[in-house]
C-alpha cells in the first residue's frame, strides 16, 4: 500500500506468532532492542488454529520476566491484525514507536543516554 511507518521498526517475518519463543525476544533486548512487538492474526483466524493464542500467553509471561530483570514489561506488546489491514499496521508501528520513545532507551544499553 506504500504507506509509511517509522524506520526504526525492524520487521522479522515468522510463519506464525506461535513460533516465537520468548528467548528470541530476550536476545533482541540483549542485542540492543528498545522494544518488541508481536503482530499476529486476529483471534479465531489463526492459520495454525491457536498459534496466536499461545503467543499471547507467552507475551504475558515475557512481560513478567522483563519486569523482573528491570527492563520493563511495557516494552513488549502483542497486536492482532489481519494481513489486509495495512493502515492498521502502520498505526501499530507508530503507536509502538511513540510508546518506546517515551520510555526511553532500554536500561540494558550501556551507551544509552538515560535522561530524556
Amino acid at each position: 500500500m506504500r504507506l509509511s511507518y517509522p524506520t526504526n521498526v525492524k520487521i522479522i517475518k515468522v510463519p506464525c506468532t506461535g513460533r516465537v519463543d520468548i528467548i528470541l525476544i530476550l536476545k533482541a533486548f540483549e542485542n540492543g532492542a528498545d522494544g518488541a512487538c508481536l503482530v499476529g492474526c486476529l483471534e479465531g483466524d489463526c492459520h495454525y488454529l491457536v498459534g496466536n493464542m499461545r503467543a499471547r500467553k507467552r507475551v504475558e509471561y515475557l512481560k513478567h520476566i522483563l519486569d523482573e530483570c528491570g527492563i520493563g514489561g511495557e516494552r513488549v506488546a502483542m497486536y492482532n491484525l489481519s494481513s489486509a489491514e495495512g493502515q492498521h499496521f502502520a498505526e501499530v508501528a507508530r503507536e509502538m514507536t511513540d510508546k518506546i520513545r517515551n520510555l526511553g532507551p532500554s536500561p540494558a544499553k550501556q551507551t544509552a543516554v538515560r535522561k530524556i
Partner: protein
Amino acid sequence: MIVANRKPFEEIIAMLKPYSKILLLGCNECVTVCATGGSKEVAVLASEVRLYRQKESKPVEIKEVTLERNCDPEYLESLKPFIHDYEVVMSMACGCGIQFVGEHYRDRLVLPAINTTFEGVTEEHGVWAERCQGCGNCVLDRTLGICPVTRCAKSIFNGPCGGSQGGKCEVDKDLPCAWQLIVDRHKEMNMMDKYLEIQPMKDWSTSRDGGPRKRVREDLKI
C-alpha cells in the same frame, strides 16, 4: 518426576552479586519436564541476568550448559574442562543435582537457582501436582491407589477428617480431599467393607524421619 520452581529473581541476583563469570547449569530430565531448569529455562534466566547486570553497569559472563542428568557422576565429568574457568556455579537442577556437583567439584560453590518442591506427575500440559513423598513403605494397595501420606494434608490413614467439604480439602478449596477420592474408589470397586477396617499406624522410620536413606545393590557395585 521431581518438580521445582525457579527462585524469585531478587534472590538469584543477590546470590550472584559478587560474581562476574558464572556457569549456569541445567538438567535434561525432571526439571525439563516441569519447565523449570531445562535448556530453555537456562537460556531465559541467563538472558535475564545479563540484561539486569547490563542495566546495573556490572556486566556478567554466563556459560549455559545443560547436562543430561546431574545425579549420575558420568555426566558431571563433562564439566571438568571448563568448570574452573568460572567463579561460581549456579544450578537449575534439583536439590540432588545441586549438591552432587558440589560434591564432585569441591572447590566450586554451587548455588541453587530453584526451589525443589515435590515428586509429582503432569496432570495436564503446564500443571504438575504432588503424588509421592517417598515414605519408604508404600500403602497404595490398602488405599486403592491413592496415597494418604501425600495427598491428605494431615496424612490421615483412617479418613476423612471433619474438614472435608464438597470433595475438597480444608487447606485449599482447589485440592481434592484424598479421602473423598479413596472412598469413591472403594465404592467404584464395590469394596466399601474394606473401608471399615482400621488402618494401623504408619512406621515413619523408613521415611525422612528415620534419617537420610540409601539403597545398595551389591551385585552392581564394580
